[in-house]
């Protein structure tokens, strides 16, 4: 696990939200490790970065965690990281939720929960119809799993044996205070998926789970995560869900994330 890169991206997330006074930081920190491993080690991206159809595709269905995806896409060169400084400004390409018609590398415009997985099912089915190689990855939240379309998609993907589809649940227990979703691995297994439970912040576990494709059924990876992971004051603290740090908090958080490293991606951080 490359702590420096991860911490750099976390600082970018914090900085971006701080400059904009906007953003869902804890959700972004919850999904960051998963998205990074996907883009760094699992997905085939070569053609994608030249705007052709990608062999592998990823949908961040919980679009409010956009800062996590933006940090990874910037680190991977999909767009200039300077764009992060314009996050949520009037003419920015980067909004609170991602827009696939504005941002290179964004597969679907998400934000309303429960849309990404059925779109991913369509991508996977479409690839199967056209006999195209490539896998489709979709990241949803545990709160999002309250949505009926998630379970409609679970039925469909199992019925059509979409082995090219892999859904990752960012299980940070944010919905425990409302409608608990219980054992998602058991539930998806009952629908006909192959389920794996991992630590969603352990890069080796993430890689092992993501890199192996199933044979005859879709795959669900239930990733146990911590909302706000890596920034102690935010971890599992609902008050931070949609709040950006003050100047003082920002400096303290940056120190916490510096972790002995002096270089940063963003010179201002």
């Amino acid at each position, binding site marked *: 696990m490359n702590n420096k890169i991860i911490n750099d991206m976390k600082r970018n997330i914090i900085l971006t939200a701080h400059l904009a006074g906007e953003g869902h930081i804890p959700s972004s920190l919850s999904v960051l490790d998963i998205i990074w491993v996907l883009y760094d080690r699992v997905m085939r991206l070569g053609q994608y970065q030249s705007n052709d159809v990608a062999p592998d595709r990823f949908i961040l269905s919980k679009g409010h965690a956009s800062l996590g995806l933006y940090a990874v896409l910037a680190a991977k060169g999909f767009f200039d990281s300077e764009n992060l400084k314009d996050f949520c400004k009037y003419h920015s390409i980067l909004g609170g939720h991602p827009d696939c018609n504005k941002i290179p590398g964004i597969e*679907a415009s998400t934000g309303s929960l429960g*849309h990404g997985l*059925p779109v991913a099912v369509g*991508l996977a089915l*479409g690839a199967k119809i056209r006999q195209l190689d490539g896998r489709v990855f979709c990241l949803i939240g545990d709160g999002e799993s309250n949505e009926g379309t998630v379970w409609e998609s679970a039925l469909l993907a199992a019925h059509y044996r979409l082995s090219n589809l892999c859904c990752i649940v960012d299980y940070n227990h944010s919905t425990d205070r409302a409608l608990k979703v219980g054992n998602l691995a058991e539930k998806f297994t009952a629908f006909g998926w192959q389920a794996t439970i991992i630590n969603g912040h352990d890069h080796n576990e993430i890689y092992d789970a993501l890199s192996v494709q199933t044979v005859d059924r879709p795959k669900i990876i239930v990733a146990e995560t911590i909302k706000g992971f890596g920034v102690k004051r935010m971890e599992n603290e609902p008050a931070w869900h949609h709040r950006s740090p003050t100047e003082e908090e920002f400096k303290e958080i940056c120190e916490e994330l510096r972790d002995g490293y002096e270089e940063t991606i963003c010179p201002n951080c």
Partner: protein
Amino acid sequence: MGMRKQFVQTVEQLLSCDEKLVLLLGDIGVFGFKRAFEKHSSRVFNIGILEQATISLAAGLAKSDNIPIVHTIAPFLVERSFEQLKIDFGYQRLGGNFVSVGASYDYASLGCTHHCPGDVGALQSIPGMEIVVPGTSGEFDTLFHQAYSNGNPTYYRLSERENSESQEVTFGKACVLQTGNAATIVAVGPVLKHIFPAIEGLDVGLLYYSTVSPFDKLTLRENAAASGKILIVEPFYAGTLAYQVMQALKPRPVVIDFVGVPHEFLTNYGHAEEHDEYIGFSSQNIRTKLEALINGQ
């Protein structure tokens, strides 16, 4: 042959010549598409009764360079799946075809759960959504061929009732069926049988719209600007096209009256024709409204 049978025939023919076409049935019309299931088993799906996921899935198909057609009953296709149509197709600017049956109260005996006079009004609020209201089976065939692969989301409203003959329709264009100076009728889809008897001997224009969105403003402006008196005969909620008509004739002041479905739940059953009578989809009512419009009453 009826619009539903025409839909089957049109899509069967296109499935054979366009490899990108994928048909998703919401567990209706399955028997009708029996041959298509046999011949194109990899691209014809009885997807089940889960309309919201079906629309999103169709968007995924569109992103995979396929051309999806989704077919089910109007309220479930449009109202239940509205957000999926809005975001996954409208906002993302994807192409797809949504073909409904059960226009307004075609399924009168089934009650309000199966009525959908609000479909066109809801869909025209989605930027970029195209809306086609064919008046006959032949018009559906023509319009579907013209628009199904144009890269935009397009709604086709099939009706159990048809006009007696097809007009020479073009997607996005209104037909001028009669010119006249005293007033102008904007007629949409399968309503012409009530209109022709109503306008006998009157100096009124008759514009026929089989495409509602995009709305052909130019034809209206060229043919209705003189009188500024418009009677909209629309087989869905009355007033649905009022904004389009006023925009087309702006800045000229206009007087508009409507023959359309009232904003109420039609809780009676029976036959669609009985609802027509209650609503005023009749030659007599149209004539009365026209004369009142012309005489400034």
